[in-house]
């Protein structure tokens, strides 16, 4: 997935050479921290921020007792991850809603950060909450920027307001009047991308801010930004006193270290992130997930979410009932396979699990084809065979094998796997509700 190996691997490597018992020694921490530093820098965390962070973590880690069940490497990773999550902001932040309507949101950022697209995404997000947003075109410089926002607003089903190349502050003011007259409760002002060192254009933003009663000033930042992220964020914050940050293009394979740098330097909350090309692809920011992403530790929480999306509550309830009255059959098993495919296949899921780098799972170990084979086998069975797998004798198996283009051994393998899964799930079912993966 990534060019660089994850932090867990690096740290495991360090500790594999050391034999630590009881508590973490200073030397061990120092060696581990060197790896943490490289991981942070490769993730584009600002070097000054990384230095501070490491100092803090070292202080905390030295002498810390190693918890039962954890090895020293895991202990260090745990501390690093906790600290990182804390630094990233521990709660998610919502958008401010003004007591005096309309609520006014102003976007700002460098060229190409994704402001115009994000306007549309915010509009969709707000519409889902029952709001009526109006998008206002104040990018009077980039060719076809106004047209782009117009198309975006149509796609999002939001209102649109423009006054051509007129002064943006004036346009913003008129837009608010327009919103008041036409019942829009939220105004989103798209502004031109600009360099933070272009004083003239920064002044223009200040004028827009002064012309209307702005509730939110959201700085849009490309998640792939490098060391310069800090300079940019500081400059925008100083000029406009931004109220929040939006990270875009987080659907790439970037580690997104810029997120941490910006948060550390400005102290402003990260409110949303853009996670795809479609207008629906907007997510509320999760600090804990970002932490493990920066460290290259897999995204366990996202995995759980993904699983929960694919397996609906209803399905889960049905399944729980079946387990209880022992009626889990091959039909349900088939449904499980389909769920797994919905989640993007095994390879995708494995990629999201932490520690998988260490296991070095090769393509042939995860046999997507086997999944398809299993599906074909079940689909070649009669309804009776599916609900009562016990009746499967050699003749039936031979017929099923021929029908699915497999062998009797394959059919036997499936039946065996099914029995094991059933057994496993019975045990699972007694415990917590929730995740039910058939493997």
């Amino acid at each position, binding site marked *: 997935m990534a060019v660089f190996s994850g932090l867990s691997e690096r740290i495991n490597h360090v500790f594999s050479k050391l034999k630590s018992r009881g508590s973490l020694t200073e030397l061990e921490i120092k060696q581990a921290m060197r790896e943490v530093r490289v991981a942070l820098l490769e993730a584009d965390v600002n070097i000054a921020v990384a230095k501070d962070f490491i100092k803090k973590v070292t202080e905390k880690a030295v002498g810390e007792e190693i918890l039962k069940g954890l090895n020293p490497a895991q202990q260090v990773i745990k501390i690093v991850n906790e600290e990182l999550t804390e630094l990233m902001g521990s709660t998610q932040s919502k958008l401010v809603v003004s007591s005096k309507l309309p609520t006014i949101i102003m976007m700002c950022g460098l060229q190409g950060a994704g402001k115009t697209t994000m306007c549309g995404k915010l509009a969709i997000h707000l519409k889902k909450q029952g709001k009526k947003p109006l998008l206002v075109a104040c990018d009077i410089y980039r060719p076809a920027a106004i047209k782009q926002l117009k198309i975006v607003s149509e796609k999002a089903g939001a209102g649109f307001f423009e006054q051509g190349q007129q002064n943006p502050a004036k346009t913003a003011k008129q837009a608010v009047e327009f919103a008041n007259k036409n019942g829009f409760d939220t105004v989103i002002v798209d502004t031109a991308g600009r360099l933070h060192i272009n004083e003239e254009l920064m002044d223009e933003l200040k004028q827009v801010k002064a012309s209307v009663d702005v509730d939110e000033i959201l700085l849009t930042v490309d998640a792939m930004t490098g*060391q310069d992220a800090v300079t940019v964020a500081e400059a925008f914050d100083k000029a406009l006193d931004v109220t929040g940050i939006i990270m875009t293009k987080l659907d790439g394979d970037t580690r997104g270290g810029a997120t941490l740098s910006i948060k550390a330097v400005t102290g402003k909350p990260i409110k949303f992130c853009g996670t795809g090309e479609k207008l629906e692809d907007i997510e509320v920011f999760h600090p804990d997930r970002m932490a493990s992403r920066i460290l290259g530790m897999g995204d366990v929480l996202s995995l759980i979410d993904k699983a929960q999306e694919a397996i609906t509550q209803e399905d889960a309830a049905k399944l729980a009932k079946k387990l209880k009255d022992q009626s889990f059959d091959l039909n349900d098993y088939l449904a499980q396979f389909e769920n797994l495919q919905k989640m993007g296949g095994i390879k995708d899921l494995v990629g999201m699990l932490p520690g998988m780098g260490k296991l070095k799972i090769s393509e042939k170990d995860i046999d997507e084809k086997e999944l398809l084979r299993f599906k074909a086998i079940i689909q070649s069975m009669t309804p009776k065979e599916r609900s009562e797998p016990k009746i499967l004798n050699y003749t039936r198996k031979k017929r099923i094998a021929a029908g699915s283009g497999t062998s009797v051994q394959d059919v036997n393998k499936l039946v065996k796997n099914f029995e094991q899964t059933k057994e496993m799930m019975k045990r699972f079912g007694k415990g917590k509700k929730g995740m039910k993966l058939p493997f």
Partner: protein
Amino acid sequence: MGFFKKIIDGLKKTQQNIGFKLKQLFKVGVFDDDFFDELETLLLSSDVGASATLEIVDLLRDRLEEEKITDPDQAMNELKDILVEMLDTDPFEIKSPAIIMVVGVNGVGKTTTIGKLASQFKNQGKSVVIAAADTFRAAASEQLEVWAERAGVRIIKHQEGSDPAAVVFDALSSAKSRKTDVILIDTAGRLHNKVNLMEELKKINRVISREYPEAQRKNLIVLDATTGQNALQQVELFNDAVSIDSIALTKLDGTAKGGVVIAIREKFGIPVDFIGVGEGIDDLMPFDAESFVEGIL
């Protein structure tokens, strides 16, 4: 100096930071571990990346030792030499007919770069046609049309959402019949880890090879100078898909240093040929390793 003034101006902002600190650092004239640690930090803060930084630091350490250099100015020059050697490249030359396909992730400035390139080739007396193969982003072809108009070149476009390969096909046919010198292909921004979008790019690539095999080919990736280490992944995956020949580094008029191109050169050997230093049509410069390094240091 005139010609490079803009670059120098652009890079000056970065200079105030790192250049000043570097000079202070070298001035001390003691080249011990602390010195190299500090140098490492400075390079890292220019986005040079961990592995390229280590290589540069090691190289400098060796050279200072070998040649017994103790003079600060001389040491500084050694560092410059190392960086210039790493980045130096032959001038970007094309022979007609040439096809330049421009690729890159979203928002790096592909469309703007194409507008500027079109203008440059036009000024060199070449005939140019632009293929608007970004049929995905809203109003992308309108944006490109404005640039084509400014540059005074032809543009071939279809409707939003149509097949990009078909746009390219039409542009190639048109270019062949008119004996156009340069064909510039704008493609949709895509995050490099999106498999189906990379497949689309391969398809365009195949169409070009099939329809106009005699034309000279250049695949140009546009990188945003503000991008950090992810630029390495971008180059790697685009290079896997369509084999990249050249880099245009944009937005160098900000405070970003674009040091990641050093890491890219070290890892993939792909040269930077152009740098973008502003939004005007003439704000695209041929890359010059010495000016670039001069600007960084």
